[in-house]
Structure formats: structure tokens, C-alpha cells
């Protein structure tokens, strides 16, 4: 049926995938566009969380329950594997966030700011304080 422009059922049926896309793009955009180092981490967290949603969505089966044996042969189970994978990914995400925040603390202690623009300015001065003009560092 090539004449159907928008299949509404299809679009609504994949609601969680749309949300995944929106969250992912928001997160990526925040990570790239914000100059504040903390906000970048917030963006990164959003980005990672969207992936959790992708994985959990694909393990879901309509009417499926948690994969615990009930004894009833008609029970439909959700696929537990993506859930387990995403538990690992959550741990990785926490470790990344913790490390990133630790780095931000050190940066703010040594440089006195968490704004990328100020940091770039300071590094520029550091470069030209140490190096000859025209040395080019970026």
C-alpha cells in the first residue's frame, strides 16, 4: 500500500521508540551545545538513558509478564535478556557520570570555573604564555 502517507497505528504503536529518538537527540544536542560542563553531563545522561529505553522496549511483548515461572503454560514472558544487558549499561553509565563529576570537581578546583568558554580562554592564555605566538595549539 504505497499510497498511505502516514500509518497512524504504526506511528502510535511505536510510541516508546519515538520517545527514544526524541530523548536521544535532546541528550546529544545538550551534550554538544552547552558550554557548562555539568550541563554536558546532564545531556550525556539523557542520551544514555534513551538507550536504556530502546533496549527495554525491544524486550517487551504485549501482555508479557516478568520472566518468573508461574507454572501456567499459557503465560507470555517478556524477553529478560535486554533487561539484563541494560542493567550492565546502567552500571557503566553511573561509573561514567561519577568519573565525569569527579573530573568537573577537579577542574573547578584548579581552574575556578566550569564554563567551557572561560576554560578555553584560560588555556589560550596558557598556550601563548608558554609558547611563541603563531605556535597554534588547536
Amino acid at each position, binding site marked *: 500500500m504505497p499510497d498511505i502517507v502516514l500509518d497512524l497505528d504504526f506511528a502510535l504503536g511505536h510510541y516508546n521508540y519515538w520517545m527514544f529518538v526524541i530523548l*536521544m537527540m535532546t541528550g*546529544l544536542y545538550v*551534550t554538544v551545545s552547552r558550554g557548562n*560542563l555539568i550541563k*554536558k553531563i546532564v545531556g*550525556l545522561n539523557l*542520551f*544514555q538513558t534513551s*538507550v536504556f529505553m*530502546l*533496549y527495554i522496549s*525491544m524486550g517487551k511483548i504485549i501482555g508479557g509478564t516478568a520472566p518468573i515461572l508461574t507454572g501456567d503454560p499459557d503465560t507470555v514472558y517478556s524477553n529478560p*535478556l*535486554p533487561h539484563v*544487558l541494560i542493567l*550492565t*549499561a546502567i552500571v*557503566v553509565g553511573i*561509573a*561514567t557520570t561519577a*568519573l*565525569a563529576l569527579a*573530573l*568537573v570537581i*577537579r*577542574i573547578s578546583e*584548579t*581552574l575556578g570555573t566550569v564554563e567551557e568558554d572561560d*576554560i578555553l580562554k584560560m*588555556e589560550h592564555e*596558557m598556550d601563548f604564555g*608558554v*609558547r*611563541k605566538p603563531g*605556535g*597554534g*595549539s588547536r
Partner: protein
Amino acid sequence: MLDIIVTNLPALQVVVPLVAAPVCAMLGRGDRSWAFATLVSFLTFAISVSLFVAAYGGEPISYEMGGWAPPIGIEYRIDVLNAFVLMIVSGIAALVMPYARRSVASEIPAERQAFFYTAFLLCLTGLLGVTITGDAFNVFVFLEISSLSTYALVASGAWRNKRALTAAYNYLIMGTVGATFFVIGIGMLYMITGTLNMADLAVRIAEHGDSRTLRMGFVFIFIGIGLKLAMFPLHLWLPNAYSFAPSAVTSFIAATATKVAVYVLLRFMFTVFGFDYAFQASTLENVLLPVAIVAMFAASLVAIFQDDLKRMLAYSSIAQIGYMLLGLAFLTHTGLVATIVHLFNHAVTKGALFMVAGCFVLSAGTSSISSLRGVGRDMPWTTAAFVAGGLSLIGLPLTVGFISKWYLVQASLELGWWPVALLIMGSSLLAVIYVWRVVEAAYLQPAPEGVIRREAPLSMLVPAWILVGLSIWFGIDASLTTTAASRAADTLIGSSQILWQE
């Protein structure tokens, strides 16, 4: 007892450094933790050598983690290709560790050294794990273990230069975006195949045929790994991370981390994605080939204008990664051999050069090229090692660099792409310029008045010279490396489902 150890070698390869890492943290300050970490690195090297010998015969070794049979359990699968990469990684670690003692002592306070070596062992664990595993999601987990510890290691350069902190932060942001892209790609593959075992994925993807989800998965994985391996437009994290990390860390990650990422790309490109020759060939030819060539030139050009030796070498690394991707982009047997052989050759060369840079940092306190004036007279052995490594970087005959370029040129001529062959030689000329700048400063310019620079200690010179020696040895007699690379290319081609042009 010995039987148990031998049958479990693939697991021990990863478990030994992993378990050693927290022990190392508990050993307390200074030399004890260093000695322990060195011992562990020697042990892992011994394990990878024996795995390489076992895999070299031909049959891949399959190890079931925890006794769960693949494709449901996690499989460690070792063929010639990853045994070769394992040997590179653990071999470089075993050389960097003896080197690290003096270098780290001068760059990191004594009470933090135990944590430094802990992070180092974790990084080693991650890199070995990525290489050895046959499970796609496991690759992600180990990739993040190695990356997270690398961020910490890079940040530990802050005692020498506080810019290491922002370098590590930027690396963290870009590395995490890359890893997350990778995991999205894996998710899409899982969605259509329902499996994570690489060999099983390959079979099911071939059955499944082409689809949009598959292509999206391919692109996500390609970009994610591209970020990790500093493929040209995605390389922005690399120069700062390499220049501000402690010297021992730079020589370790420059020689191994990007190589492991190239290995992952090879593995996914050929073993896992075998669905459509035309799609893959056109991706390689239209995306990877131009990117590789631009990297060779742009990064080399930028390297020429650097004032800092470590930063110059970092840009040169980006150019060298261009060579590896170029070999891949040919999509022929010779091209693959060039890529795989260059993994080893570049690891040896760049490892040696960054070790030399670390020696300069130790005695001169800085790695800026202008401070290296006349250093050839004060530190003859260190500077000579730089010259030998530099020649290999350029690709002069009798060095390993020549072997890589020989195969690359041969591969491009086989396809009749002679402009590419000319470009390979042209970019080597750029390497001549940036290596010459350092040589000129070191030998031809007078030393500044009143500066005392002592020759680097033996514990740092010997590892650097071992690597230089290897780069000359395998430049004269490349039979071992090229045979291994050729067999590795054969297994890659054999495992892929796509039709190969001969």
C-alpha cells in the same frame, strides 16, 4: 593443576589483570604496587604468547565462559587475528611497565601511584577483554572498562599540567558518546537477530539479508567505533589526551587503545556484517577511503606546525590511523594484510617514540621542541632512538614502516588505484618534514646556555630501545608479522559471508 591452567588460559588472560587491579590498590605506596603490576603484565604477556602459539596453527580456540555454551553463554574466541592483537597489547604493557617506574615517579606523587597502577591494570584488562571476546555486548562492557580507566589515567597527568583535566573530560564526553552509539548499534542487531554471539550474529544476519534496521545498526557501530579509534573527523579528543597524559600512559594507549578499536572495526565489518557486498564496498570506498586519505594529509600537515613533541606525535598517530583505515578500504586480501601488519608496526614505532618523548620530559621537564635544542649531545641514546623511530614513521626501507607502506602501495596497485599509491608516498614526505624538525633541533642547533640534561635512566632507555630494535628487526625480516597478518586476513575473509573480489 597445570591442565586446569592451560584449559582456562583464555579466561585467565582477562581475569589475572582484573583480579590483580584491586590487590594492587591495597599494596600501598610506591614500588611495591609497581613491582606487582609489572609482574602481572609479564604474566599476561606470557599467557598471550601461549595463546598466540596455540591459535597460530589455524583452528580458533573457543572458550565457554562459566561453562555456558555459546550462543547463549559468553564465548571467548581466539583466532590468529585477535591472538595477534592480544600479543601486541600485552607485549606493549609488559614493556611500558618497567619504563613506567621512573617516569611515573617523576610525574605522580608517591601516595597516588598505587591507584595509578590499578587504573593501568584495569585499562589492560579492558583492552584484552575487547580483543578476546566473541560476544558483541561483552565488547561494549570491556570497551567501557578500558575507556573509563583511560580517562582516569589521562587525568592523572594533572600533576604535571592541569590541562590534563579538561583533556580527560573532553575524551570522556566523546568516548561515552561513541560507546553509546556502539551500544545502540548492538541493540539494533539484537532486535533483528535475537543473538549477541558474533559468529551466530554473522550467520543470522546473512540469513536475514538486507534491511534498514541492519544498515542503521551498521552505521551506529561504525560511527561509535570511529569515535573510539579517532577516525579523522572524530579525532578531536586525541591530541590533548595524548599530550597531557603522563608519558607512560601516552606510550601505552597510543600503542594499544586505537589498535584495539581498529580490531573491533575489522571484526564487525567482516565477521559480523556480511550481508551485502555492494553496500559495504560502497561505504568503504565512498566514506572510509576519502576519510583515510584526508587523515593522512591533514593530520600530518597539522603535525608539522606543532611546537610540542608529544602533540606532534599525537597528530602523526591520527595520520597513521588513516593508513590502517586505508588498508581496510581496499577490501582486498593485500589491503587487510597491510592494515593488520600496520597495527603491529605502528604500535611498536609509536610506543618507542612516545617513550622517547617521556625520556625528554623526565630530563628536560618539558616536551616542547624548542627546548630540545642540542639535546642530541646531552642525551645521545635517547635521541638516537627517536631518529630510528622517526625513520620507521616515515617508512624508510629496513624499518617496519616500510613494510606497511609496501603492502599498502601493493594493494592500491592491485586495484589499479595508482593515484592512491602516489598519495601514500606523498604523505610519507610530510612525515619526513615533521621528523626532521625534531632531528634538526636535537642535532644541529646549539644547546641553550646553562641547561643540564642528563641521559635518561636505563630502565626507561631499555624498553624504548627494545621497541626500536623490534621495529628494525621486523623491518629487515618481516616474515613472522606478515605471515601472521596474512593468516589473520584469511580467517577474516573465511569468516565473512560476503563475496570477495580477488
